[in-house]
């Protein structure tokens, strides 16, 4: 097991490095720059600003300096657009926010999605199954950029129960709508995955054997069927987890939560290179980490993988 983990880690580091280098190059070659505006800056002014941020250096030098800053001081540089803050500030402020609503969404998606999927599979073709399938299809086709404004319309304007946005330090009433809007489609995917996986497992030979032995349904489901059922779900959970805790552009921009999701997309539009790179690093390393965790979990659940 240890050598398996070590092998995965040794691949992860070069992967991250390649990701950073490609992103850096892609970003720099995109047309425009962080200091373009409606009226172009006079050349002298632009030169001063570029010198301040080291953008007057050749690209390879910028890249090396940048990587050096990360490795030696864990410093991701300044934001070119939001000049009052560094990239470290933005991550320190925004990441706990997305982590907060992302973790709650993740839990909710697993618990409700998993339960719905299992229930639907056990009672296949019953009203419960049709209900679950109907709900999940509905939830999957309703994009969150449609759902979020509708939630605000209903809960803020019509009912007046919840504030229409903001974060307020993560006070519970500010968290509800972002969590609903974020978790719904994940919940639906988990439910559908669980349901189909469970149905397949329930039809397999070892379950038939268990039934033939006369084991009660409860024991069959929990002791024998559950573990093989969650295998495909687990492989989905890694990317889903990263997707949720690194936030969403839609959630952050519609609910003004201040999470990193908005900064990431906006940084690309603003050519805010350092913010863009810092968040790519964050998202990239989280994606690699959690894919690794999934692989390890997988190996633990299913010994065949380790071979």
């Amino acid at each position, binding site marked *: 097991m240890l050598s398996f983990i070590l092998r995965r880690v040794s691949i992860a580091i070069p992967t991250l490095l390649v990701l950073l280098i490609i992103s850096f190059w892609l970003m720099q070659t995109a047309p*425009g*720059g962080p200091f373009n505006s409606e009226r172009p800056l006079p050349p002298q002014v632009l030169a001063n600003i570029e010198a301040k941020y080291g953008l007057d250096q050749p690209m390879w030098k910028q890249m090396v300096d940048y990587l050096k800053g990360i490795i030696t001081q864990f410093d991701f540089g300044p934001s070119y657009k939001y000049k009052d803050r560094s990239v470290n500030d933005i991550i320190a402020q925004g990441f706990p926010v997305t982590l907060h609503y992302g973790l709650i969404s993740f839990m909710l998606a697993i618990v409700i999605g998993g339960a719905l999927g299992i229930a639907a599979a056990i009672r296949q073709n019953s009203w419960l199954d049709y209900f679950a399938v109907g709900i999940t299809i509905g939830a999957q086709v309703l994009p969150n950029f449609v759902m979020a404004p509708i939630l605000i319309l209903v809960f*803020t304007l019509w009912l007046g129960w919840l504030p229409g946005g903001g974060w307020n330090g993560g006070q519970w009433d500010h968290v509800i709508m972002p969590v609903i809007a974020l978790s719904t489609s994940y919940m639906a995917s988990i439910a559908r995955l669980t349901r189909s996986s469970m149905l397949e497992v329930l039809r397999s030979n070892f379950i038939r054997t268990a039934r033939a032995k006369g084991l009660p349904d409860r024991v069959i489901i929990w002791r024998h069927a559950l573990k093989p059922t969650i295998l495909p779900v687990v492989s989905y959970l890694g990317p889903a987890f990263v997707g949720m805790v690194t936030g969403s552009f839609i959630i952050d921009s519609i609910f003004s939560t201040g999470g990193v999701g908005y900064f990431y997309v906006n940084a690309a539009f603003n*050519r805010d290179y350092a913010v863009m790179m810092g968040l790519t690093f964050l998202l990239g390393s989280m994606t690699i980490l959690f894919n690794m965790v999934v692989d390890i979990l997988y190996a633990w659940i299913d010994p065949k993988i380790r071979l």
Partner: protein
Amino acid sequence: MNVSTKSILLASALALASPALAAAPEGVALADDQTFTYRVLDEHSSVDPQIVEDVSGSEIVRDLFEGLYNQDADGNLVPGVALSHTVSDDKLTYTFTLRPEAKWSDGNPVTAHDFVYGWQRLADPETASPYQWYVEVMGLANAGSVMAGEAPLEELGVRAIDDHTLEVTLEKPMTYFPLTTTHASTFPSPKWVIDEHGADWIKPGNIVSNGAYVLTEHVPQERSVRERNPMYWDNENTVIEKVSALVINDENVALTRFLAGELDRTEVPAGQYPALKEEYPDTALSFPRLCNYYFNFNLSENGPEATQDVRVRKALSYAVNRDIIVENVLQGGQSPAYTFTPAATAGFEQPATDYSTWTQEERNAKAVELLAEAGYGPDNPLSLTYLYNTSEAHKKVAIAVSQMWKQTLGVDITLENQEWQTFLETRGNHDFEIARGAWCGDYNEASTFLDLVQSSSGYNDAAYSNAEVDALLAEAKSMDDPQANYTRVEEIIAEEMPIIPIYHYAGVFMMNPAIVDSWPVQNVEQNWYSKDLYKVAQ
């Protein structure tokens, strides 16, 4: 200086003598709740006066800091830290007398040295301010060489005679100089705080400011909050206790939250003004803004051959039915434009350009005639590409105009949109045929617009060059009444049509009726100060 600018300065001179007025007029019943919460589209760039470059950041900076002069509800100059000023006979030296009671929020007095420091900091290449060029707009002596790092900061045309006397020296006479002192980048800076905290000095807890408010909270991309500064010299006449700017990217969500009572002010989404005005007549507001919207022809050598012909340019301009654009497409109280400079500009008498006096039928007839003369018609159809940056509102205008050109002139237009940064680069490289342009004035005087058509302007995307225009505009800088020059430049623009003026902006807002009375709707630059606002009891 023309008559109206003169009257502005005269009015300000009078105001300088009168005692400070309370924000709320006597006899007005004030509401118990004096908090003002408004929506901003995006996170502000900075609250550092010498670094800030965006509108929403400048709004905050105007509350946190105070410069030499402020603007009143009509956009006239009123005393800020400066009580008054005198001008030398050669019009090169301005001497400002500063208010002795002005204090920073840490209790230190505001002195002329703080202004000198702030202005030097703005000009300093080390600061790398995106508004560094503003010292040249102000016409300060030696601005160019200081900006380039060739002369020491002390050579910049500003110095403190004593703690309360500031002397400014200009490169050459510029009659509207005092108007430039309301800009955020000219506000004083506390050297001792910047020395202590470095780049973190503008964070809540560190920041020391001399305006009516201090920054108490800032959660990026969520909110920033400013509260009363008890040290402010006019604190007892300030009414609003707390001002919150909430970042809400989606304008429709912002409208919903406004209607739910969470906001006192938000923008009206494009096209929704007539319906909102009908449903909420006291809440939906529209007033003129100091901004224009126009199309650039590409007159550089990269540009298409067809539009090098002035007849083609005129035909395309005449065939745009501006009334339809403002009344049916934008629907927010904008006004059709036949001049580059908005009519709302202070001291600017909008000249009646020839085509503005014609009916649209006459314009269309003339357009057809001109295009035929230029050799384009059914046998030789003209086709062009129009480039704009991706946005629903720009798209609507683009579609409407391309339809007008198609129907009236038979011109085929290909619409092309690009994401903002790509658009700026493409347009800046003159790699287009016709491209969208828009500009909001930096100060309330016609040159802030007309300077854009000077050959040397960095924002002259049309690459238009006319020696007469350049000479007229250069001369206007030091004239007492430059109106004749401005009129002539507008006439030349109408004759040569390097750009097509489309419309002049309106500010279209939903505003809490409690605060509407104190909102400076007459201030076309929309330079508002929270200290002048108040909420009346409903």
